[in-house]
């Protein structure tokens, strides 16, 4: 492994490491636009110049591999002067429309101008004009005047998705990003070009103009959209709720995890959070009598559910768990089942339309925690359980999250099961056709409203954190189940998600040793 010195500090890096990455290792940030670790080297923006001893003039760091004995200086006078010049070149044809630009606050032109530019503008001539507000596809909109032609988006579509929708057209200062004729930027990962665009050229049609980015808070999280469990940041708007008509989750952004999703997430995941602030959210425990629905207090609902479970023999209770529940929830459920001796359980409900997948990130299993549910021991035949309910062998049928009417099974079977059970309990975040046939509805907090972990298809246990408060009186499933357990006389259930995971880790060998601390930001593998 080559050893080199960067600004006087020695560092050893794997062969092939470029100087931007090598500098990062010693905490030196070399400013750059076109370089992105997930894409090929373009060497176009010319900002990442550094001085290398025995080299006559500053050299781009992105295309220079670290070699043994190299001596690199990133803050010499001529490097700083070159950076200042390149910043001036980047900005002479830029519209400087920051006050109306959605990127303001997270724009690398602004950041680098303040850090490395700070020159007196000399450009007094008419700027080059280019197309503005051009929709490229369902999610992305282009302002070609703000574009600095770093080509990251073009390389993303060429190298990552292989779809090649984008190109750079024309020449010189008339160069502009655009779609090839007849194409639309509609691939399943299109939103990523907004993330990698360092300026306000590509913005998100869903997010833009909602709220200024400096009002956002972020929480580290995991995408619940499929079994991959892409690492994300949840950006929430708590400070200026009126700016987005009450919408709290402003956007999801990928969070780098080399072992799971690298720098990317799919569009389905990125834009799949709307249920959180949807009008169908369940916010109060309620009881249905025919057409009449009455909100009830949690204590009353918990007592009623516990009473129903107590009145039924263990064989007369059936539970349809969900692989959308966190490991903590699943373990709480498992404890309830054991406590009551309940055998009829399962979690796999085949969707009517099979999930799409690809060879990159998207998995056909649209649940984030199927492996977790399996390892916790909730495997069982849901269809058989429903058949039992239809045959009136089940008194209490507790359904978590699923809308069974969206399953691949015939509607008559579902209706028969829901009618056959004496008491149907539904726990979930949003109302659906199934919840509307339940006697008791217990509202669950959405994943961004609570703590928890999912086990992805690789066996990686990954942690998601609370970004906003639960809507209304919704509670995490582990909390609901804990209250029911307590009402049933079980020993005191853990008061926090973290403690539920500890219990799980102590009880199930696959999870042995896992704690929130051990899982960290990058996740940890289950023992297998």
């Amino acid at each position, binding site marked *: 492994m080559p050893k080199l010195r960067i600004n006087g500090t020695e560092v050893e890096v794997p062969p092939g490491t470029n100087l931007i990455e090598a500098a990062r290792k010693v905490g030196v940030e070399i400013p750059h636009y076109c370089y992105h670790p997930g894409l090929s080297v*373009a060497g*176009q923006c010319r900002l990442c110049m550094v001085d290398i001893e025995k080299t006559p003039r500053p050299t781009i760091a992105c*295309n220079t591999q670290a070699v043994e004995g190299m001596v690199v200086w990133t803050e010499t006078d001529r490097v700083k002067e070159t950076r200042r010049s390149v910043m*001036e070149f980047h900005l*002479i044809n830029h519209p400087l429309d920051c006050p109306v630009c959605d990127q303001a606050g997270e724009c690398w032109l602004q950041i680098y101008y303040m850090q490395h530019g700070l020159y007196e503008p000399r450009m*007094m001539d008419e700027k080059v004009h280019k197309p503005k507000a051009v929709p490229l596809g369902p999610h992305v909109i282009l302002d070609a005047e703000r574009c600095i032609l770093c080509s990251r988006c073009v390389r993303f579509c060429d190298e990552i998705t292989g779809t090649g929708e984008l190109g750079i057209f024309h020449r*010189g*200062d008339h160069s502009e990003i655009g779609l090839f004729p007849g194409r639309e930027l509609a691939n399943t990962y299109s939103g990523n070009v907004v993330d990698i665009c360092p300026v306000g050229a590509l913005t998100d049609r869903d997010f833009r103009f909602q709220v200024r980015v400096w009002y956002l808070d972020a929480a580290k999280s995991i995408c619940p959209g499929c079994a991959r469990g892409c690492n994300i940041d949840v950006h929430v708007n708590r400070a200026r709720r009126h700016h987005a008509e009450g919408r709290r989750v402003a956007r999801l952004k990928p969070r780098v995890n080399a072992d799971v999703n690298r720098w990317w997430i799919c569009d389905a995941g990125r834009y799949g959070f709307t249920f959180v602030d949807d009008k169908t959210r369940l916010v109060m425990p309620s009881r249905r009598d025919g057409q009449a629905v009455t909100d009830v207090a949690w204590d009353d609902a918990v007592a009623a559910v516990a009473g129903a479970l107590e009145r039924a023999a263990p064989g007369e209770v059936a539970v349809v768990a969900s692989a959308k529940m966190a490991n903590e929830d699943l373990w709480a459920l498992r404890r309830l089942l054991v406590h009551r001796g309940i055998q009829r359980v399962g979690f796999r409900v085949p969707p009517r339309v099979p999930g799409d997948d690809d060879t990159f990130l998207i998995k056909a299993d649209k649940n984030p925690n199927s492996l977790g549910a399996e390892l916790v021991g909730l495997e069982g035949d849901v269809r058989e359980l429903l058949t039992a309910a239809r045959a009136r062998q089940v008194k209490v049928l507790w359904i978590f999250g699923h809308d069974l009417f969206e399953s691949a099974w015939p509607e008559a079977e579902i209706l028969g099961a829901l009618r056959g059970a004496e008491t149907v309990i539904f726990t979930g975040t949003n109302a659906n056709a199934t919840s509307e046939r339940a006697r008791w509805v217990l509202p669950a907090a959405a994943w961004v409203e609570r703590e928890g972990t999912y086990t992805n298809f690789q066996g990686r246990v990954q942690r998601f954190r609370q970004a906003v408060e639960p809507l209304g009186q919704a509670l995490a499933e582990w909390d609901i189940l804990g209250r029911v357990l307590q009402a049933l006389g079980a020993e005191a259930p853990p008061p926090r998600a973290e403690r539920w995971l500890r219990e799980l880790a102590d009880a199930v060998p696959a999870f042995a040793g896992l704690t929130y601390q051990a899982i960290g930001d990058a996740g940890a593998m289950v023992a297998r």
Partner: protein
Amino acid sequence: MTGEKILTRNFGRADSHTLSAYLETGGYTAWQKAQAMEPAAITEEVKQSNLRGLGGAGFPTGTKWAFIPKNHTGPVYLVINADEGEPGTFKDRYLLEREPHALIEGMLVAARAVRSATGFVYVRGEYVEPWRRFSAAVREAYDAGYLGHGFDVVVHRGAGAYICGEETGLISSLEGKKGWPKVKPPFPAIKGAFGMPTIVNNVETICHVPHIVNRGAAWFASLGTKTQGGTRIFSVSGRVRKPGIYEASVAITLRALIDDLAGGVAGNGRLKAVVPGGSSAAILRFDEIDVTMDVDGLRNAGTMAGSAGVIVMDETVSIPEALMVVARFYAHESCGQCTPCRESTGWIYQMTKRIVEGRGRKDDLDTILDVARRGAGTTICAFYDGAVGPYISYIEKFRAEFEALIPK
């Protein structure tokens, strides 16, 4: 001082482009000779001849050939740069039209030296007749069995972009991509066209190779200076009485080229300035033309031999207008890849245009000089450095003429 004509010796014949005429004057004998030589011996001969690239950069040709990795086992490509686009340069056009078989024979020899089985000839899009003539010669060479037995030639036409004459821009274009120069390293000799080791040589450079093989390196070297052998074809244009192409030793002086070969200065008859090596070369004043035209002679004079496109300006020529035209060219032809070049070529053109139109600002000249110096050497390819040559030299050498146009 005119000396022996080598490349242009057959230009007087109306049928010089045909195989029969080429054979009559000793064509393809060098190829016969080369087939008995070891590849390394051919490269060594070319090294000893002091042949330097005649497309613009003046890099020693034999040295370039020796860059091909010795242990490489896949294909090696020989690419001929016939994208002659440097303003003021029109020599390769004549070679393609009038001596196409010299290029083919030179390619056969060069291909043997670098162990290439495929050659590409990238012909400038606007060169229709040269392309026709050269393609016909390629067909003749196939029919006669020179090509197709271990070496094939593919003729590829460009689409009219100056940047495709830059060797890696040419390779990108040849590969079917936008003609953007590539970041180096890797250099083409290591990873060039289609990812394979590639030698890119200019038309005129390769046309010299058969003569070097036939008559020896020492003979070729003796025609020029200590560091550059041979003759080259000078394209002389602008205010001279006899504009055209002139083959002469690289050791000829600029003054002799203008006065003795090109018939002297036209216009008002008094020389103001000369651009000696295509538009990217720094301009020389009337009193700076006693220089030899070889690569090092012109480098020492603060300019460059470039493509040997000599543009002569008499006293009636406006230097600010000339700079505006040059600046417009570079703004139009910048590929747009690197930020300094993309943004500042257009900016500098706007400033020169304002000055010529009488709307210059007091700071414009210093801004142009500063911008040009800051951008120089910061880009992927040499295009911007080529633009900086005129930006700086026109203003530094004729500043008063610019200042006179700027309102007080």
